[in-house]
């Protein structure tokens, strides 16, 4: 605490914020189109599905778990929706089916971790790859067209001048915020990572909390999967490869850590912004797609390194190991 006051206010600003500011400055210079309203809307639209998945991943990480299946779940959901549409089901049923599939995958993750006792990342990687496999088998590895107007409206439509996907992300985020900070569920999530024994002692069924957390993460991945299907107008098992990395990166850059349930979904917004601005800026600046892959990995990892360093100085906690 003392160290914190000594270091002064400005040094408490996490490095992620500096990097966002720096990126904006650079992009403003390099790419004239960056600071236009339409482009900023673009950033927000790109951020929308990522924010939705990342919030789910954040809750899982708060419980000292991990979810590597979200990218696969998103792909599967886009496939399920497209196939249900193709089979002639109404769009609402199709979307419900997709959400159900995602939620089910999430719950399976939870059962594997909390009841069966598998290490979280083996469990989620295993379930995720099975979800991917199901997606592949259902589509024979092909992309399935899904040009339903309601589905497309999620990306193209707007309400009161605001793009639908932004509204959807904001709504999802709002609901999650209520869940996390206004109800016992959120307190359970934070306690499960912080001190599960304390939670057990007051009579909470920690296993159920854990299963539910993975379920929520799966459900949110499913919502994001709908947005991806809507944007591409298709269902494809590999549509969201690598999204898990972005989501985990956004969570950690934001300041949620794997220890003691520290952090929160509010912080993840910052991480999501960083990644989305980075990606959009690279596009606007005309950097070729091929360079983006490695560059984004580099920036995300670099920010995390800075962030770990930053927290070590602020907390002055250079203990033995």
């Amino acid at each position, binding site marked *: 605490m003392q160290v914190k006051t000594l270091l002064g206010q400005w040094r408490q600003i996490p490095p992620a914020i500096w990097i966002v500011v720096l990126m904006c400055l650079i992009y403003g210079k390099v790419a004239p189109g960056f600071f236009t309203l339409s482009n900023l809307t673009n950033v927000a639209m790109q951020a929308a599905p990522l924010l939705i998945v990342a919030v789910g991943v954040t809750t899982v990480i708060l419980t000292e778990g991990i979810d590597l299946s979200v990218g696969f779940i998103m792909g599967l959901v886009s496939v399920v929706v497209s196939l249900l549409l193709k089979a002639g089901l109404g769009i609402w049923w199709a979307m419900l089916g997709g959400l159900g599939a995602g939620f089910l995958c999430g719950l399976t993750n939870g059962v594997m971790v909390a009841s069966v006792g598998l290490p979280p990342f083996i469990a989620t990687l295993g379930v995720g790859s099975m979800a991917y496999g199901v997606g592949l088998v259902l589509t024979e590895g092909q992309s399935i067209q899904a040009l339903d107007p309601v589905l497309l409206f999620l990306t193209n439509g707007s309400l009161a001048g605001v793009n639908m996907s932004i509204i959807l992300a904001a709504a999802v985020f709002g609901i999650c915020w209520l869940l996390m900070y206004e109800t016992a569920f959120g*307190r359970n999530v934070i306690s499960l990572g912080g001190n599960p024994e*304390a939670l057990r002692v007051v009579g909470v069924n920690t296993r159920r909390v854990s299963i539910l957390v993975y379920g929520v993460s799966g459900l949110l991945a499913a919502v994001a999967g709908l947005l991806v299907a809507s944007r591409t107008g298709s269902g494809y098992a590999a549509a969201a490869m690598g999204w898990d990395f972005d989501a985990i990166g956004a969570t950690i850059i934001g300041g949620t850590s794997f220890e003691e349930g520290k952090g929160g979904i509010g912080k993840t917004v910052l991480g999501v912004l960083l990644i989305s601005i980075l990606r959009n800026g690279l596009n606007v600046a005309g950097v070729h797609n091929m360079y983006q892959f490695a560059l984004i990995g580099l920036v995300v990892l670099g920010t995390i390194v800075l962030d770990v360093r930053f927290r070590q100085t602020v907390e002055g906690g250079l203990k033995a190991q």
Partner: protein
Amino acid sequence: MSSQPILEARGIVKQFPGVRALDGVNFDVRPGEVHVLIGENGAGKSTLSKILMGVIAADEGEILFEGRPIRLRSPLDARQHGIGGVYQEFMLVPWLNVAQNIFLNREPRRWKGLPFVDHRRMHEESREILSAFGLEVDTRLPVKHLDTALQQMVEISKVLSTSPRVLVLDEPTAMLTDREVSRLFERIEELRRQGVAIVYISHRLQEIRKIGDRVTVLRDGRYVGTVNIRDVSDDQLVEMMVGRSISQMYPRSRRAPGAEALRLQGFSVKGGPQEADFVVRYGEIVGLAGLVGAGRTELVRGIFGIDPIQKGELLIDGRKVTPRSPNQMIQLGVGLLSEDRKRFGLALKSPVHWNTVMASLRRHFPRGVVRERKVQSIAREYVEKLRIVTPSVLRQVRYLSGGNQQKVVMAKWLDTKAKILIFDEPTRGIDVGAKAEVHALMDQLAQEGNAIIMISSDLPEVLGMSDRIYVLFQKRIVGEFKHGEANQEKIASLMLGIGTGVKTNAS
């Protein structure tokens, strides 16, 4: 005081791997009394309290609540009977705020039937609960940001706010300052008048006299007896706890201190002792006394290259050394037997033989190729020499008793052939028999010409074992005694900062 016990335990037996923690223990507590449970470390006090609170289940015996047998399968069961308590372990959630911790899983709701928490009421009530202790804490702070004393008070407030009928307090004052201790005692007095039955675990005799009515003594997991506290003297209590009088306990062969082994000059460690001057010679045992938090452990961690040195000098055999890592210090012939053997001493899931050579592999196998048979025979020698009770050196150390685990750690350091050995709380949590053996071994090591630094919270041990004693208070060395000059009162008062000229704020 009413005479009917509200909670009673009969013939409780609890077996842990390698140790019989409780062996036919009886205990009862009546409404409106403070029943103290005392015993040495490892006597089984905490195990018994956990059984009473439903955290762990007894193997045998029964528990009666208001005369009727009950089963406590979980802490929730206990809570439903009105049994609540403060555990020795940290039971707060670090990143939840004070109010959230106090109201964990019983938050006030904003609207009936809806899951939304009424934050305003929760904070208000938390403030009321805390102000009953005279605490002005911002209830919106995460408990992680409070110091340990405040955390402990939050923990106690959390239990008291559930209005328990039986209150179990397991060493609640360990982390508290004077002022908070007296507030806590006032509250306990108040609760007693209201008819709450209180189980109070401690090993501080003064404290017990202040608030206790009856006292039950445990020794090595066995029930020794229950007495009215006013009917016994401190000496009698100690004898009940220890089983013999103190004077016979500590072996001291004739020792002849030789050359200077290790010297500190103006030694300051980050977050630890400041400006320490300190000498140990070969062939002597030097005791370090002080309260928890006085800087004893930080001092030796500094010497061992774990915590960074701020200034000052460390000389080993007269040569200046800057400690950088344990690895370097081990090569210079220093060994540190840490206070927390499970965390810093042992690989619990590894067998005895690999633990024995963990710090000395390179010495045995300079060419880098390990022969497991040789390792086993080395370990077997130590098992014999230190009388470690284990069916085989291939046994994982987690299955050994505390005393035998400690001996494995000692074997590890002996095997480095270190000439300067630092023992941090070498007999904490081990039974009396093993204690005597550890003492004999330390005596023998000193006699063979090793330099030994011993940290201990057990004053009789410090007095009995040491050739010289340094006393630390609030990160400073405030006194030095030779064997025979010191007595319990002198050291205790220095430990508490009396007569040191340093401002007191610890009990």
